[in-house]
């Protein structure tokens, strides 16, 4: 709509029985903060005389009205009629109900302010839906969900900015060895999509980037992206790897979950997209102390590596934003009873994924973790093979002391890991310690049965503690079904760690102005039938950032979010009136 479009607020008198209160500072607040016309219904004539009402609204040239006060509901109908008579749709009347708190107004003043602000911003958002929507879309996070969403939209012939914090796309899925229950190798099914993203003319991939500010209104977001330097020019790098060879600095690789070492200038993993090198600013000697710079000398492409590169901020205009920033694995060391970090052969599931991966530290051999001369813990091929492996479920999940929610994927990936172990070590004894086996998806239950047939021991009962006793990992578990205490010695323990909101989740929710639930996952306004729509029109959530889920569900959600985007662009309409109730209460 045009700039003639004006929101006004009408303060209704409280119904009889309520003592009227002095509105003056409330009015001042509205005038100063919201800068909109205020009408006060002092002597109840406003609603009693329809023409006066019409006149007043016309006089203030109002196109949307906020009815504020105690139980203003009773006036809604008349104002609606007035508005429709004036040629505006009925939704242009919004109720801000202070509830009975009005009586104790002094104590409630802050809430009333907040309420009015909330209502106002919503009305503004609604107003903006009708002005043309910016076609470009921003996708935050390039895990499988982000990738899927970007492809869906780009394949519709629309521009996408894919913003990834790390140096490559792929997210957690790239780290997995196989995927349950089909046992496709994760890389095999993910890399083509990554390549597609990398090559897609309509996807602008921005690695090492973060969203730092979002301004503007739905359909016209102005997003500030902070791009920290890679120090290697993505265009000119030919990925020959000479720099990495010569680089003197070694640090543990985050892609391999610290099971291997990488250089300060590195390629996150062989199939990384963009398949170019980058420099780890914290580790690089030149960037830290200003000496070295060997990479520049050996690089065959002149000017490809620029160690003086600085972060830059880019502003992007986008109509929609899809948030798919994924999750953070639970910190196993937080539960000291399991001795993670204390005993070398207590591994997290993610570490094990890397260990068992063909591209992992041992080329897929399951071996023990030992400490080398330099004191970093490493997996070496000749350290023998574990013969008894225990997998402990629900580490950090379903636990009031940590995360009360269920992480949804652990049971299944634990079964998968058990299968992979069985494949690699046919003679090994494998135990799963679980509370409830949650094999819920398509083909999952069948997979569970299959793993049992493969001779993996399923123990109902969660291991309580792991102690290292002369080289063996000693477990205490109650085998509930057999009805006895188990005291077992294991060679290796895998902790099925749960999922937690990413570190930047809170920050993002503030920047984007979208709600999070009590655990910090993003909140959908109507989870039951629309799990990707947030309280902010034009901002969508997809994947695990909304709550733990497996790959297919993340992919589906990503596409669903894309649907929201496409729909809004194709219909040039952002909001869905059910999301925006016409009545607001003090919460």
């Amino acid at each position, binding site marked *: 709509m045009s700039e003639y479009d004006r929101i006004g607020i009408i303060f209704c008198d409280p119904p009889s029985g309520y003592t009227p209160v002095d509105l003056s500072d409330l009015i001042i607040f509205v005038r100063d903060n919201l800068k909109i016309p205020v009408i006060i219904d002092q002597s109840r004539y406003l609603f009693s005389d329809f023409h006066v009402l019409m006149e007043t609204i016309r006089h203030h040239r109002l196109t949307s009205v906020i009815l504020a006060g105690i139980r203003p509901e009773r006036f809604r109908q008349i104002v609606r009629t007035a508005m429709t008579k004036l040629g505006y749709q009925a939704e242009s009347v919004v109720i801000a109900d202070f509830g009975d708190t009005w009586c104790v107004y002094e104590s409630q003043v802050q809430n009333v302010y907040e309420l009015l602000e909330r209502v106002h911003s919503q009305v503004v958002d609604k107003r903006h839906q009708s002005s043309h929507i910016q076609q470009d879309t921003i996708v935050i996070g390039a895990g499988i969900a982000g990738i899927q969403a970007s492809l869906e939209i780009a394949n519709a012939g629309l521009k996408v900015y894919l913003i990834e914090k790390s140096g490559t796309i792929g997210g957690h899925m790239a780290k997995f060895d196989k995927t349950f229950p089909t046992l496709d190798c994760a890389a095999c099914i993910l890399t083509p999509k990554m390549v597609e993203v990398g090559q897609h003319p309509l996807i602008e991939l921005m690695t090492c980037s973060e969203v730092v500010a979002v301004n503007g209104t739905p359909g016209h977001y102005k997003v500030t992206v902070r791009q920290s330097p890679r120090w290697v020019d993505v265009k000119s790098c030919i990925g020959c790897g000479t720099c990495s060879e010569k680089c003197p600095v070694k640090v543990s690789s985050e892609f391999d979950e610290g099971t291997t070492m990488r250089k300060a200038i590195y390629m996150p993993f062989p199939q990384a997209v963009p398949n170019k090198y980058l420099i780890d600013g914290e580790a690089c000697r030149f960037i830290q102390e200003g000496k070295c710079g060997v990479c520049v000398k050996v690089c065959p492409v002149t000017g490809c590596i620029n160690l003086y590169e600085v972060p830059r901020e880019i502003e992007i205009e986008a109509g929609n934003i899809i948030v798919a920033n994924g999750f953070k694995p639970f910190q196993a060391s937080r539960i000291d*009873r399991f001795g993670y970090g204390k005993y070398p052969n207590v591994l997290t599931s993610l570490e094990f994924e890397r260990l068992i991966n063909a591209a992992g530290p041992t080329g897929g051999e399951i071996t023990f973790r030992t400490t080398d001369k330099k004191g970093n813990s490493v997996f070496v091929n000749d350290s023998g093979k574990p013969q008894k492996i225990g997998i402990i479920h*629900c580490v950090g999940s*379903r*636990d*009031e*002391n940590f995360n009360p929610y269920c992480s949804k994927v652990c049971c299944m990936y634990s079964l998968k890991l058990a299968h992979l172990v069985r494949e690699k070590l046919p003679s090994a004894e494998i135990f799963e310690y*679980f*509370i*409830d086996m949650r094999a819920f998806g398509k083909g999952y239950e069948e997979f569970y049965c299959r793993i*049992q047939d493969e001779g993996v*021991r*399923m*123990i*109902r*009962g*969660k*291991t*309580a*503690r792991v102690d290292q006793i002369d080289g063996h990992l000693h477990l*205490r*578990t*109650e*085998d*509930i*079904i*057999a*009805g*006895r*205490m*188990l*005291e077992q010695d294991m060679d290796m323990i895998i902790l099925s760690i749960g999922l937690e909101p990413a570190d930047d989740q809170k920050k993002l929710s503030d920047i984007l102005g979208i709600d999070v639930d009590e655990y910090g996952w993003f909140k959908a306004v109507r989870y039951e039938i629309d799990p990707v729509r947030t309280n902010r029109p034009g901002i969508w959530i997809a994947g695990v950032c909304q709550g733990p889920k497996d790959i297919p569900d993340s992919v589906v959600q990503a596409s669903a979010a894309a649907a929201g985007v496409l729909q809004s662009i194709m219909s040039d309409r952002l909001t869905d009136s059910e999301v925006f109730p016409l009545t607001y209460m003090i919460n």
Partner: protein
Amino acid sequence: MISRVDPEFKQELHKYGLREWNECFHCGNCTAICPLTKDDNLFPRRGIRLAQMGLKKQLVSSVDPWLCYYCGECTETCPRNANPGELMMVLRRYLTSCYDWTGISRLFYTRKIWELAAIILIALGVIISFLVFLPPSPDLFSKPQAFINEQGGVMINSLANGISASRFVQLIEYGDLLMAILVAGFLISNIFHMFYRVILSDRNLKFPFYSYFTEFWSLIYNFVTQARFSKCDNRTYWIGHLLVMTGYTIMFTLIVAFLKEFQIEEIKPWYHWQRLLGYYSTFGILFFLIYTFIGRIRKTDLKMQFSHPSDWMFIVLLFFTAVTGILIHIFRVSGLPAATYFTYLIHLAFLVPMIVIEVPFSKWSHLAYRPFAVYFDRLRRAGQNRQSIVELTPAI
């Protein structure tokens, strides 16, 4: 016959001070974290399960609650905050009242006022009968020096009017014996009841008769050392417990069996055995009292977070008994006959109900039940060893 689940049973347990605990989803963490569980005694979880399902028979026939010493680790680490440790405590109370065939114990636990009334009643009874049979001699105030012996202490047995020292001791001894018989009577019958529920009522339990004797040592051993307790992480609690237990028993035996040697006119030098023993038990009891007082008030220790009235009742009684006991000693040594006489009176007014009420019917019965529980448990095992050991089966 197949037992039937009983959802009402929770209400029953509530009377014994049960708090929220139904959240338990049986992950088995509590059992596994407990340093005392092994083989097939799966407390606390199995106890929780039986309580949840209201399977009274199985509950009463299991000794598990007695094998738990409430170190609180299970409660700390419980993923559902279901507080298994506290439930064990509640079950102990419940079992105590189950073992007690008179039903008095149940009355005391579930209706607080009754316990209090009973105590007061007995206390009054003691005071009255004491004043009737051993009235204070009028000379107590007029010429107190008449009661002072050559060591300058009060001759404790000659304070009653017109009653010779030997007679005095004898009367007290009768009283003690009566009390002891009463207590022992109840306690032993209750223990037998326990024995019936745990061992005899279990038809398919078979073990060789000689195990009764072979396992007997464990009863003594556990009674004296509280060995299992020491396995819990918190040692001070065990020491405190050991001290009070031994102190208490020593005192008990002294006054019941050796009153003639213990309560004598002359004051022996401090290194004399009876004085040393007396000091030891006093110290033991005080140590424990202070420890628990602080604990229960500060609620620092998990196991002391929820205090059932019966817990307080016992501590209070014990406290006053101890204090008055000490006072008697002080007054004697400092030669104050009147004070000695009346403190002695009050001392008994606390001591008697403490023993008569607490030992057979309330908190203190566990002093006896715990070691017996271990004993019975070993008997059951002796039975199991003959059956084939349960094989590790994959869970369903």
